[in-house]
């Protein structure tokens, strides 16, 4: 049997291949597992993710020196992609820990749930290493299609189904727009390989066809990271989806979408950075304002965290802008490593905060409100302290990861010549203090009326503890992480 590619290319996607096989196995196994015995499936899923994580360095070593392109330039394994792959696997594993009891005690089968989470993770792994617009598009759809189902997984809960329907219609529409953008880029550049696109763009004069193509591609990306004006789905979906899935949505897809956003725009559309930077700047400003002002008005905690994640997507856009403006005197792309640090911090603090919402047992499906946190410090001081750490970090107060991430991002924006945007970001961080501290106030200053509803769940508690440790570690000792992020940049 002959392949149109060297067989060693398969080593490059070894983690993805193994994870796909294991996910299919879990899907089969789920057909014979009875309700109530599904915890085994969850642990096997976590083991599969761990296996994929272990295989990443193996694949990197066996397949040759990095960066290693495979399948005719469809995929590239480099340190940038490995950084995102590790974060994606971590986010998925934490989501499964959150889901153990949430799904286990519900009336819905768990097997397909875990399999879908793994398929979504496979899509994100491929997104991280995609270097061809087609492979990126297919990976994006693999991730998104799994997620549409996951959002509506609690199919007899009206809110869950409604969230899935909205997510699906808007997601399919945005991927249609993205595809149209890609077709225009193909028409103008004559290739879909990001490296070829860049060479072609550098050689050809500016054209309106290409400009429209780039803007439409950007709008597809902005939808996936939930940036204004394409953010409307995010609060609805976060509120309606099962809480562990909301946690997953606010982290996993955003990380993967930032990976392809950075790769498409820096590697592919890099020669036109001066043209698309103003578009991203407008979106960043709008996103920061909409996210933070929107969050002020929310009572539902999941919805508030949804708006807050929109705000955070706006901050991270500053890093993309800073990258677009070039390198500093030492030749470092300060914008990109600031994004990497920020996304790692964002993953830890957002997953942690959602973990505490998972522990909070609401009176009905998707009704968790700020008042439900009333008096938590008396009932469970450790949980309250953990939530406080996450809130401080989300608001960007030292000594937490959120502060470090924001500091690097905002200073990158300053260095890159966007001082007004950096100023707006600082102002919006101040606004965010109001809504984050409403939760802190409820936990510490308000007496709880009646019985606080709280689940005791060691798996979630362990995951939250890891997030607290990470948030504080990244906040107190950022240097090793900065060095790591600097070694994971795009060429």
């Amino acid at each position, binding site marked *: 049997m002959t392949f149109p590619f060297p067989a060693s290319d398969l080593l490059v996607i070894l983690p993805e291949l193994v994870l796909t096989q294991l996910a299919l196995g879990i899907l089969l196994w789920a057909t014979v597992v009875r309700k109530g015995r599904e915890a085994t499936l969850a642990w096997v899923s976590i083991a599969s993710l761990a296996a994929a994580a272990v295989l990443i360095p193996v694949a990197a070593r066996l397949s040759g020196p990095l960066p290693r392109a495979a399948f005719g330039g469809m995929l590239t394994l480099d340190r940038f992609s490995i950084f995102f792959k590790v974060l994606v696997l971590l986010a998925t594993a934490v989501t499964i820990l959150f889901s153990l009891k949430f799904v286990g005690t519900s009336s819905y089968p768990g097997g397909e749930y875990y399999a879908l989470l793994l398929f979504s993770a496979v899509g994100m792994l491929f997104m991280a290493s995609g270097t061809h617009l*087609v492979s990126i*598009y*297919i990976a994006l*759809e693999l991730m998104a*299609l799994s997620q*549409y*189902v996951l959002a*509506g997984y609690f*199919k*007899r*809960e*009206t*809110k869950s*189904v*409604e*969230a*899935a*329907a*909205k997510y*699906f*219609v808007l997601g*399919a*529409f945005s991927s*249609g*727009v993205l*595809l*149209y953008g890609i*077709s*225009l880029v*193909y*028409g103008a550049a*004559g*290739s*879909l*390989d990001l490296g070829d696109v860049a060479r072609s763009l550098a050689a050809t004069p500016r054209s309106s066809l290409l400009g429209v193509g780039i803007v439409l591609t950007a709008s597809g990306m902005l939808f996936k990271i939930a940036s204004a004006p394409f953010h409307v789905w995010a*609060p*609805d979906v976060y*509120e*309606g989806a099962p809480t562990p899935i909301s946690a997953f949505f606010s982290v996993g897809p955003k990380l993967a979408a930032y990976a392809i956003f950075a790769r498409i725009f820096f590697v592919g559309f890099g020669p036109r950075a001066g043209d698309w930077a103003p578009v991203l700047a407008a979106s960043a400003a709008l996103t920061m304002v909409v996210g933070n002002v929107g969050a002020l*008005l929310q009572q539902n905690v999941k919805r508030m965290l949804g708006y807050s994640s929109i705000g955070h997507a706006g901050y991270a856009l500053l890093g993309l802008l800073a990258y677009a403006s070039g390198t500093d005197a030492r030749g470092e792309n300060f914008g990109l490593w600031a994004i990497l640090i920020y996304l790692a911090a964002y993953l830890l603090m957002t997953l942690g905060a959602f973990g505490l919402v998972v522990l909070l047992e609401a009176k009905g499906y998707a009704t968790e409100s700020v008042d439900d946190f009333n008096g938590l410090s008396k009932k469970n001081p450790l949980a309250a302290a953990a939530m406080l750490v996450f809130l401080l970090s989300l608001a960007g107060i030292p000594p937490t990861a959120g502060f470090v991430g924001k500091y690097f991002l905002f200073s990158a924006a300053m260095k890159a010549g966007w001082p007004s945007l950096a100023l707006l970001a600082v102002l919006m961080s101040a606004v965010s203090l109001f809504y984050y501290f409403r939760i802190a106030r409820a936990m510490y200053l308000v007496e709880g009326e009646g019985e606080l509803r709280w689940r005791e769940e060691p798996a979630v508690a362990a995951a939250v503890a890891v997030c607290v440790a990470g948030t504080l570690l990244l906040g107190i000792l950022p240097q090793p992480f900065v060095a790591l992020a600097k070694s994971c940049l795009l060429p």
Partner: protein
Amino acid sequence: MTPALPGAAAGAGVAAMTVPPAAFLLVGTLLFFIGVAGALLKRNALSMFLSIELMMNAVNLLFLTYARMRGDAAGQMVVFFVIAVAAAEAAVGLAIFVALFRARMTIDVDKANLLKW
């Protein structure tokens, strides 16, 4: 601008008329924006979904035309993937709409208003 499409003039004896690629591009673009208008204006989830399918097929036509104009196979390859993805999307989307109908007895998107602001 318009290289003669290979094979277009092959019909010996028949006055072969070459359709310029620009015409295909025009049709594709028109179809795409009809799809966009449908997706934005229709209130029935199924009609919205069909409009989105129209958008994807319009893009397929564009990819094919650009591939032909440039003599590059990559554009033709994309079409197969887009068709496959559209089929998967139909399976997932229709399942979600059935679940929505069971929960609300309607698939009018204006009536799906539990989650707001």
